[in-house]
């Protein structure tokens, strides 16, 4: 029981308790009998009032009293006085109940119900509230009731804002008052048409909250408000396209979806993607909606604009996303000629692409690139195995210098003559806050102060360069997070994740930096001097992946030997063919959900992770096809699984992820889940698999056998997509 000390019951207490219990039980039975028989006499009403005074949570008694009110009003002479007196009785019952328990939902609601009938005076409500808010200034029932009464009374937003100021003045640690202030201020800011007056208000709030922060730098209340103010400072920021694939001005050579052995990805302008599914990726700085064939126009000899469907790359059935993909059908491109074709993509020239708060894409973008097809070579029937060992990779700087076009960075900015979208006021405000928090930290070791400073510094860098190519403060921020990991070890994983994001920004901040992590893969050399280019971010202590906007071109990625427990955001890397996630901390198959969007992925290592080790799956609700979250794409119905085959339901997580992939190579060794039974299940969902844990297996025999047993005999076994397409 909340806040009641644990004491051994004394015999005399037990006796007293039994006597009290007997009395209460009698009262409850009597009440229920009145209620069931719809008796609303004075005696009956008194019994319910008495019961609610002892036990305000006895909800049926509140219902009874509402019925009684209706009955009494009907029976009364309907004069305003007698009606009012019926309702006034209720207000008294509520007050008595609240005295017993001021957190009773039923009591507060009964009062709202009474007042909303409009027969009672509102004069005493604010006084009553004052009493309760003095007794407990954090009582959220009272605050909710206050908002209700303020609206009924037509109190001005300014008056209520003053009230929060008074309460905060009494006690800086009143989070409830800060919260209410943020709600009220949002209303005021919404009404201000002039930008400058909103700016004045926000600037004043910074001053106001700083007082609180100085008073007790370790109290959380003011800091959360400060974070909200920071968000308000940037709110007016319109969405911006920060990166795309292809990069503007690039000349691409594309071949069909052939094997790695036939098609080394030896340059950044050569791609092996399915010609009928050539992806164009648009990466915005915030979530946008409205990307479609009327807001994005494509001009090209072989693509009809309206044939292109734009999809949000968001793991759930959302209509908004930071990243969008459109697939062009290039199958009309002539393989026998090396002529290049120009594709022009224009967006933002018409309204429609907008952020969640309704702001339109700020600057129109024109993306132009050329595509030529590479003649198809004879396909080898067997894939070559991709090995990720250290000695398979070699640095080849001169080749890489040529292979990586400078266009990878700042391309969009240069092409579109980017002008800053941030105002002097925003830059000035952030600079001022940085200096204020630095001063505060000079006299205090406040943990949230340090977090705030780190966030301010990153916001500052992002503002001066929205494509995040300059990371002026990255070193300082990395230092702050390292400090925090020691200072507040309980939350060290949070700081590690934040640190990881900053680290990645730094690693990918310039072409020179990037080149240090690019290697040629020497494992496949059959048809070219140089092997595929692999971005190797292995062994970097990365606990969280980010900066995907810089990685849209990557086809081979090594993330092994890190501390990743999630690959959120990886769905943006539409060109990925080979991915090494070995020796990380992935806990379940549902954590691999982003891979479902990578249609080119062929080679995957998830060896030595923690899949199958944990009883609690932390990603089962963020994945896109979970049967538990009604996510549509696959209809998981009881009748689609044959009772004799329990593998699909036993391994539904693996089934869900792998069924949308066409892997030819999978390494999964070193996970708790991999027993023989599981390994025999895999070929069923991955019919193109040629290498499992390094062994070249002829799975064809098993596949035919298993597929027949799984899908062959029973017509009820089908997986239905949302489009009704039966696979």
């Amino acid at each position: 029981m909340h806040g009641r000390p644990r004491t051994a019951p004394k015999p005399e207490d037990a006796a007293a308790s039994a006597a009290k219990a007997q009395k209460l039980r009698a009262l409850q039975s009597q009440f229920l009998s009145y209620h069931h028989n719809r008796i609303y006499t004075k005696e009956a009403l008194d019994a319910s009032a008495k019961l609610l005074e002892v036990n305000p949570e006895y909800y049926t008694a509140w219902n009874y009293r509402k019925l009684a009110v209706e009955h009494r009003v009907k029976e009364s002479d309907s004069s305003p006085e007698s009606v009012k007196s019926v309702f006034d009785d209720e207000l008294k019952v509520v007050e008595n109940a609240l005295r017993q328990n001021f957190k009773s939902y039923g009591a507060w609601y009964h009062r709202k119900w009474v007042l909303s009938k409009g027969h009672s005076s509102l004069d005493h409500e604010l006084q009553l509230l004052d009493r309760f808010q003095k007794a407990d200034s954090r009582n959220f029932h009272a605050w909710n009731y206050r908002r209700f009464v303020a609206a009924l009374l037509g109190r001005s937003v300014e008056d209520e804002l003053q009230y929060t100021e008074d309460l905060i003045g009494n006690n800086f640690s009143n989070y409830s008052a800060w919260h209410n202030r943020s709600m009220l201020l949002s209303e005021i800011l919404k009404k201000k048409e002039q930008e400058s007056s909103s700016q004045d208000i926000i600037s004043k709030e910074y001053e106001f909250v700083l007082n609180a922060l100085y008073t007790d730098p370790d109290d959380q209340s003011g800091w959360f408000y400060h974070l909200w103010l920071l968000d308000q400072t940037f709110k007016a920021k319109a969405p911006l396209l920060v990166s795309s694939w292809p990069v503007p001005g690039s000349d691409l050579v594309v071949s069909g979806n052939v094997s790695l052995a036939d098609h080394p990805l030896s340059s950044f302008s050569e791609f092996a993607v399915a010609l009928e599914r050539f992806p164009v990726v648009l990466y915005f700085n915030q979530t946008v909606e409205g990307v479609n064939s009327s807001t994005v126009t494509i001009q090209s000899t072989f693509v009809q604009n309206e044939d292109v469907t734009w999809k949000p790359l968001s793991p759930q059935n959302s209509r908004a996303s930071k990243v969008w993909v459109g697939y062009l059908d290039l199958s009309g491109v002539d393989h026998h000629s090396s002529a290049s074709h120009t594709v022009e993509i224009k967006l933002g020239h018409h309204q429609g692409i907008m952020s969640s708060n309704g702001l339109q894409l700020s600057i129109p973008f024109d993306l132009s690139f050329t595509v030529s097809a590479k003649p198809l070579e004879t396909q080898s029937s067997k894939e070559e195995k991709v090995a990720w060992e250290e000695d398979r990779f070699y640095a080849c700087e001169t080749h890489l210098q040529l292979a990586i076009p400078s266009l990878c960075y700042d391309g969009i900015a240069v092409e579109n003559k980017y002008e800053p979208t941030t105002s002097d006021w925003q830059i000035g405000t952030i600079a001022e806050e940085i200096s204020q928090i630095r001063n505060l930290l000079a006299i205090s070791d406040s943990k949230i102060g340090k977090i705030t400073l780190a966030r301010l510094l990153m916001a500052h860098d992002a503002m001066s360069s929205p494509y995040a190519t300059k990371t002026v403060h990255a070193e300082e921020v990395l230092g702050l997070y390292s400090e925090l990991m020691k200072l507040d070890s309980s939350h060290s994983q949070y700081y590690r994740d934040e640190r990881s994001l900053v680290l990645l920004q730094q690693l990918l901040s310039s072409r020179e930096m990037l080149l240090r992590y690019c290697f040629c893969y020497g494992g496949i050399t059959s048809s070219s001097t140089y092997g595929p280019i692999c971005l190797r971010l292995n062994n970097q202590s990365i606990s969280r992946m980010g900066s995907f906007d810089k990685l849209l071109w990557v086809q081979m990625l090594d993330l092994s030997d890190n501390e990743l427990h999630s690959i959120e955001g990886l769905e943006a890397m539409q060109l990925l063919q080979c991915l090494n996630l070995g020796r990380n901390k992935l806990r379940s198959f549902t954590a691999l959900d982003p891979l479902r969007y990578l249609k080119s992925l062929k080679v995957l290592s998830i060896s030595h992770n923690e899949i199958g080790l944990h009883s609690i799956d932390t990603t089962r609700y963020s994945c896109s096809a979970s049967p538990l979250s009604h996510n549509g794409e696959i209809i998981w119905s009881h009748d689609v699984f044959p009772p004799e085959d329990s593998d699909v339901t036993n391994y539904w997580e693996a089934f869900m992820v792998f069924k949308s992939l066409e892997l030819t190579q999978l390494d999964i060794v070193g996970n708790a889940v991999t027993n023989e039974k599981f390994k025999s299940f895999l070929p069923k969902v991955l019919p193109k698999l040629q290498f499992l844990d390094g062994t070249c297996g002829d799975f064809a025999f098993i596949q035919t056998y298993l597929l027949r047993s799984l899908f062959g005999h029973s017509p009820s076994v089908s997986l239905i997509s949302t489009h009704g397409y039966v696979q």
Partner: protein
Amino acid sequence: MGELAGNKHVEYILSVERRKDDFHSVLMEHLRMNGAYWGLATLDLLGKLDAVDSEDVVSWIMKCQHESGGFGGNIGHDPHVHYTLSAVQVLALFDKLDVLDINKVTGYVASLQKEDGSFSGDTWGEVDTRFSYIAICCLSILKRLDSMDVEKAVKYIVSCKNMDGGFGCTPGGESHAGQILCCVGALAITGSLHHIDKDLLGWWLCERQVKSGGLNGRPEKLPDVCYSWWVLSSLIMIDRAHWIDKEKLIKFILDSQDTENGGISDRPDDAVDVYHTYFGVAGLSLLEYPGVKAIDPAYALPVNVVERIFFGRCST
């Protein structure tokens, strides 16, 4: 650090059921249906559900059903969506959902949805995002989510989102960990978690862990064992549970046990009750404590029960 006194907790729960005559039990009579769910779910998580006679429980539950289809907190008490969910959850524990007239229960729950997508708890109109979660969870278990307007329900929940990334009872209401579980759970079940700023909310939630290792429900409040469930299950659904110190939280929960007489309290050395015993054990389950069955963070039922519902694994 001590160990989980599982057997003591089982005994404690069974003894509460027998001890109907002390004042406190009488005071709680109106929410006996919730109590049944807390107690029986605890027994199931500890692998001792067979210590009670399922037929007795099922027949008592059915006596609490009102002609409207909703369930009351006890026999003769008015129906309310909260007790309706508890009734459905307990029936699910015993794999006895087939005793229900699904149309009737569904009809009751769906009838409580309002024009703006919100839900009231009963016919008297109190609106709260808790009731949105309850309705969504209940209809999803009954596989009848299509009988409500899910899009509107989600829209209403999103309108209760706050500056800190959390959620309140109604638009404008302050964020509270219990309320957050309801809103995150409802969004999880409806596949709508993209409405949440996971990093912002995740940080706010992980900051609920205080020095003692326990979790509070709002900034600058005392820790309480029940938030081990409300905060942690929310963190799990948005995949940010690694941001808290699990060992310290386990210790806080174990320190709040009454190792002599069984039961868990809100904080060390306070009086125990079934509510905190359930949330303590459920918290330990989310922390993968050995010997406790895994619980699903959205449906608040053991994982094997949820999978039985959605895959019909054992019931066929």
